[in-house]
């Protein structure tokens, strides 16, 4: 929806701004001397009203040709063409109106005399259209800065939320109690492994606490967190859980919001490996995707196991956080083919602008 048409008070202000423009138009129509000031005013008032709405259309041209991305030449071309078309329409509307008025007894000679007023009307049409282009660019830049602010705010809120979620995940009763049960089992049979498990668990908890405090972390650290989580789970699941890593080491400095991958890796174990009697392999993939980085987490799953409540929560938070950080520049896609489930993230190589 057009931002001016969207609200009544904006439209009113916009039309009021056209009153002096209509006066100028009347003055210019009368300038060649062929029309009286009264006749010029009678033409200018309805023409201005029509043109006020016609100029609103330049908004769409401005939106499709943003100043930041397109080349200056093509932007200029688009708007000059738009201005010529709009001004031609204005002139056409003017002569139509003049001949309509000509049917009235007061204005019988108006259509012949209108001809001399065409050039100033056309020039004015071009200028007014270009003015509206400028106006719309200003409007768009205001809106985008507001949107950026909103996005930054949302990113902050979501980051807090993710931190909370991650904390809850660490205190995820399943994960923690089962890990402790493994420790309890190992204390008598393999004390050294029990100690190792305690250390793994502590490292994981410590790392997730510290990374949650920052707004961005290198992919390397996020991956290390996921590895620690998987190491703890491997003690528990034994041979049922295998981990495969296909990582392009040159991409590990990429900055991402913390705890972005952790919920996905947790899902891969909880809703994937844990549903299978034989278990399977969780695959972590990091590869280049154009200027960005593609991170994929893949796992086998049992399609007959009903999805438990909350299984989509982790994913939806990751999705929202990606959008909050990078807008449309980041992508996330999940796919399950009945055997394997994958979540693929594509994030830009450049870090998100921080709010």
């Amino acid at each position, binding site marked *: 929806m057009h931002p001016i048409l969207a609200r009544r008070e904006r439209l009113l202000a916009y039309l009021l701004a056209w009153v002096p423009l209509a006066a100028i138009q009347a003055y210019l129509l009368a300038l060649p001397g062929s029309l009286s000031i009264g006749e010029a005013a009678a033409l200018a008032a309805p023409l201005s009203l029509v043109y006020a709405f016609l100029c609103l259309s330049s908004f769409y041209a401005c939106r499709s040709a943003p100043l930041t991305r397109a080349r200056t030449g093509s932007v200029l071309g688009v708007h000059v063409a738009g201005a010529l078309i709009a001004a031609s329409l204005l002139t056409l509307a003017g002569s139509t109106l003049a001949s309509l008025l000509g049917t009235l007894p007061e204005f019988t000679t108006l259509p012949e005399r209108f001809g001399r007023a065409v050039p100033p009307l056309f020039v004015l049409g071009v200028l007014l259209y270009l003015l509206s282009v400028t106006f719309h660019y200003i409007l768009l830049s205001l809106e985008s800065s507001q949107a950026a602010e909103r996005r930054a705010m949302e990113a902050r809120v979501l980051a807090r939320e993710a931190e909370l979620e991650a904390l809850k995940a660490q205190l995820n009763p*399943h994960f923690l109690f089962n890990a*402790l*049960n*493994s420790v309890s089992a190992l204390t008598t049979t393999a004390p050294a492994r029990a100690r190792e498990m305690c250390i793994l668990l502590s490292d994981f908890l410590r790392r997730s606490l510290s990374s949650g405090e920052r707004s961005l972390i290198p992919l390397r650290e996020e991956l290390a967190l996921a590895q620690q989580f998987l190491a703890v789970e491997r003690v*528990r*699941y034994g041979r049922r859980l295998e981990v495969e890593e296909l990582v392009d080491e040159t991409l590990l400095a990429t900055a991402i919001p913390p705890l972005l991958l952790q919920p996905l890796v947790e899902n891969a174990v909880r809703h994937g490996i*844990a549903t299978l*009697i034989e278990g399977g392999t969780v695959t972590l993939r990091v590869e280049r995707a154009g200027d960005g980085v593609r991170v994929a987490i893949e796992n086998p799953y049992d399609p007959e196991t009903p999805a438990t409540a909350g299984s989509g929560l982790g994913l939806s938070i990751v999705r929202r956080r990606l959008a909050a950080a990078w807008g449309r520049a980041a992508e996330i896609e999940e796919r399950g083919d009945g055997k394997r489930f994958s979540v693929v993230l594509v994030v830009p190589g450049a870090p998100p602008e921080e709010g």
Partner: protein
Amino acid sequence: MKPLRVVVVDDEELARAVVREHLAAHPGVEVVAECANGIEAIEAVATLAPDLVFLDVQMPRLTGFETLELLDPRPAVVFVTAYDRHAVKAFEVSAVDYLLKPFSKERFDAALAKARALLGSGAKGPDPAALAAAARPEGVPLERIAVREGARVTLLPVETVAWVKAEDDYVLIRSGGRNHLKHQTLSDLAAQLPAARFVRVHRSWVVSVAKLASLEEGKTAVMADGERVPVSRAGAARLRERMPRG
């Protein structure tokens, strides 16, 4: 004294090891099998007929509750879980004993003593289907029905079920063009099926509205698979409410 024959069921090797270790301290207890999932457990129970089963709740393929429903002959059961609010609530209301991982030796010994006393008294345990129903979060209907033929376990998604018929202590379930028999009462199963999909049309029949072809003279429901199902007067009224108009 006759030894107490025990089966330990848990998908985690270490979790089974803890139970085994605690049991080792008790003379007169024999671990006759260890199973890593419900399907193994059903097989082991069928062949070994143990007195007592330690049964994990969260397992791949079949949950502990689904497993219990299919155990035959039915042993005494002590459930084991790390964390499951709904399961614990169900255990409490059904007075079923359970262990929360990790558990102490004292707690384990108490559970074992209680199970022994129960076995000695000859009292029957809780109804497995009722227990499974109690363990489901409120308002969440059954999504699949676990059935068994010998040692073969099949999971029937409720969407595939056309009708269910009561046959004494059993229910005959029609799904995917095949009949499956399960030891359960119709009332019990009907109460758990999603009400949006299934209608009790008769004392001994439940039908899926989606698999219904027509209702003849308000007395017979003709199913898409050709089965003719008797419909009671009240059943017909219930069915008409749910059938698409026109």
